[in-house]
């Protein structure tokens, strides 16, 4: 075998791996109660997915040859659940070395081997937002991932075509890390505002310098030189251009209000608040701005800035016209977001339809992917979850989860050990004891607080 042939074969097999990992599937899910989210509930209805896309929703559909058949009689079919705030599937969370780290990207730290991805699938979750942590006022860009568990190629997790997002953070976390831990601004909520205004101002100067250069560089007699490239300012300039959605960790009403004022001053419109426990106090302002809110169902009191929270937050925001989602921020909670959303039936009497939107089309809007996912409509991605009962019932068990038409979780076929590469050195007596409050928003900053 000559070298050229060998190389060609090697190349071909590589392409095959890539092609296989991004493969899409055909499946027909028959006779279920279909919760479309955007077009009501359809009884005894089939959902057909071809080449990873929903090709038809109707009764007595014909399936193409080779398509998987799944009988959903007596079961409930809904779009794959979307978590707008998570840290699963990434190997690093915080680059806690500066109040502004717009140059980093969680998409560079994807970990397809994280078994949390499988556990999320087993809760019907097909997409999560792999957010940077909340140590910095301006954190890193964040990847929207599809739960294609089984792939070993990190970049296969990335949802191709999803808009860019970036993590911001207000309040105790950035002030504790930088003001408290490193003795630099911000130590207070005043400092946090100053960090944003400085960064946006520098970003604007950078953007204008490049715009000026690009507009003139081909003109005859132009003697200017290109500004120095700066990855951090590039990203901030793209925020100002409207190319990146801000997702901002926040709790208190005053700081939420502050960031809206800063964004107004710089013409930034794409703004989603995360946690936003006191969002209910400025719900009219959020609605007026067009900012969205991604909240916990009932977490509170774990730190002072969430002491004056209420589990009625999601309901108040929804009633005030704010596009609201319920998120997990936790490898545990992500497994039962359907139950977290169901709590809004109790806290604020949302309708079942409103409650389901909190974990489907609304987080899709917040991630800028609602044209592709978040509801069951022909032409959308074939991301589907099947439940044994209505997903807002406590007795509902997720039974099948499909991503791009491929079955990634099937309760009927669920071996205990779902690790992709078991670590031969892992001590099998390792017990992860229950950690109260297991959110990972502050992971990788522990070194600052060791005594």
């Amino acid at each position: 075998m000559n070298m050229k042939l060998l190389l060609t074969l090697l190349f071909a097999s590589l392409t095959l791996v890539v092609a296989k990992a991004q493969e899409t599937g055909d499946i027909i899910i028959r006779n279920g109660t279909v919760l479309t989210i955007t077009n009501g509930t359809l009884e005894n209805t089939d959902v057909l997915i071809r080449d990873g896309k929903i090709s038809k929703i109707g009764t007595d559909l014909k399936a193409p040859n080779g398509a998987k058949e799944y009988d959903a009689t007596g079961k409930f079919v809904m779009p794959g659940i979307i978590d707008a705030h998570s840290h699963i599937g990434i190997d690093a969370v915080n680059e806690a070395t500066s109040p502004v780290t717009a140059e980093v990207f969680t998409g560079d730290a994807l970990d397809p081997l994280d078994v949390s991805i499988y556990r999320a699938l087993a809760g019907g979750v097909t997409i999560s937002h792999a957010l940077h942590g909340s140590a910095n006022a301006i954190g890193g860009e964040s990847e929207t991932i599809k739960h294609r568990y089984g792939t070993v190629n990190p970049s296969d997790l990335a949802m191709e075509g999803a808009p860019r997002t970036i993590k911001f953070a207000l309040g105790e976390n950035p002030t504790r890390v930088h003001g408290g831990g490193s003795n630099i601004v911000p130590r207070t909520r005043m400092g946090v505002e100053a960090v944003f205004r400085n960064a946006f101002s520098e970003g604007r100067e950078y953007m204008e310098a490049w715009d000026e250069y690009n507009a003139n560089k081909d003109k005859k007699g132009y003697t200017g030189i290109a500004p120095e490239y700066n990855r951090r300012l590039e990203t901030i300039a793209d925020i100002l251009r409207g190319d990146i959605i801000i997702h901002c960790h926040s709790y208190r009403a005053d700081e939420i209000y502050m960031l809206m004022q800063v964004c107004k001053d710089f013409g930034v419109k794409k703004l989603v608040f995360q946690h936003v426990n006191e969002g209910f106090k400025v719900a009219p302002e959020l609605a007026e701005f067009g900012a969205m809110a991604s909240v916990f169902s009932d977490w509170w009191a774990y730190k002072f800035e969430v002491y004056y929270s209420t589990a009625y937050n999601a309901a108040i925001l929804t009633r005030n016209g704010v596009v609201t989602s319920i998120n997990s921020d936790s490898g545990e909670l992500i497994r039962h977001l359907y139950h977290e959303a169901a709590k809004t039936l109790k806290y604020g009497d949302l309708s079942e339809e409103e409650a389901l939107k909190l974990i489907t089309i609304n987080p899709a809007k917040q991630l800028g992917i609602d044209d592709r996912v978040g509801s069951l409509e022909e032409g959308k991605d074939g991301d589907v979850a099947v439940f044994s009962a209505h997903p807002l019932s406590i007795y509902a068990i997720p039974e099948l989860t499909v991503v791009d038409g491929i079955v990634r979780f099937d309760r009927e076929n669920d071996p205990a050990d779902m690790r992709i590469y078991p670590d031969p050195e892992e001590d099998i007596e390792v017990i992860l004891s229950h950690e109260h409050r297991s959110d990972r928003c502050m992971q990788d900053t522990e070194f600052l607080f060791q005594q």
Partner: protein
Amino acid sequence: MRKIVYLLVFVLLNLVQPVFGQNAKADYGVFALTNAEIVTVTNGTVQNGTLIIRDGMIESIGTSVEIPSDAKVIDCSGLQIYPGMIDAGSRIGLIEVGSDARTRDYNEIGDVIPQMKTLTAVNPNSALIPVNRVSGVTTSLIMPSGGIFPGTASLINLHGYTPDQMYADFESILINFPVTGRRGRWDRRSDDEIKKQAEKNISEMKEVWNSAKAYARIDSALKAEGNGERPDYYPEMEAMMPYVRGEKPVLVEVNAAKDIKAAIAWVEENDIDAIFIGVSEGWRMADELAKAGIPVITGPVLSTPTRSYDNYDQAYANAGMMQKAGVQVALRTGDAENIRNLPYNAGFAAAYGMGREEALKAITIVPARIFGVDDQLGSLEEGKKATLFITTGDPFETSTDVRHVFIDGWNIPLESRQTKLYDEFLERSPGVEK
């Protein structure tokens, strides 16, 4: 001058009055809960029944109960009555704001401090209490944490203005059975360090227990002599006497399968009346636990598997697997600010194998039995405490609303800071206009 004084008094009265008027008081007396579906837990369900509350107790239950003339009648048509839910392990009242050490009162300094009582540190006025009890969780065992003997846990009702008013007649020392494995991904000790530390802790635990036994023997011997002499004052030993004498059960927190096995061996060898708590790998040792007849408090049900290679739903299934093997299983949240999620923990256990009926028992009559207070709590029976709640349906479903909560016969107002914030901000006034 007088005018100014009047004005001042007027202003002050107006400032003060709304503050006094803020919190509704609980109501006491004779209540008739009529036309209800009464889920007794121990004696089936009474349809269209009446339940009479008098002097804090359930006076009668039935379909042909006469309504006393002095009773306040609550029409429960279409509603259900359940015994108050018992969270068999939490920190409510011991903690206010999680991240602030000044508001954490469950972890005193010292490895061997069984005399430290959580009942002492419970804050009856914690904002967390109303937020949680309005969901029908009326009672909880509040736990110390820390070293090997971190203190005494206490059973409290979530109503009362002093710890004594809240106390629900059960307390027990906690033993944290030494952990032989790695405690989590943050545990960076070497295998050797872990092994040495565990051996040291186990021998310390045994030594303390044996010392307490010796102390109790000395105490008995001196008492028998009857000359008023007492052993030297060791508060740790004093606190342990009722437990080493077998007069009260001890709580043993243990989770990993290997540790559960060792703990069973230790309590059997020393004839210790033990309640195991935690027991997150109980499913791996279910038959052994059943054979040993050790009751178990487990939870939170809503947690991740203990090992990366276990089934994704292992923590949901754990309680049911133990219960099916014949273990007496009660549930805990291990939480503080959200013990209101106890019924949902029970609901997940129900869905993943335990079944609804057993899961309901696991948060009512089973913990009451384990704590020896089943003559007072855990079911709806004549002569028991009127600690109960009234719902629009299945308490495990989030679509169900709680309409009334009674604790020791007190009709608890269904408001909390969280409901007040809802009332204030649902339609904020002013809105965006200045």
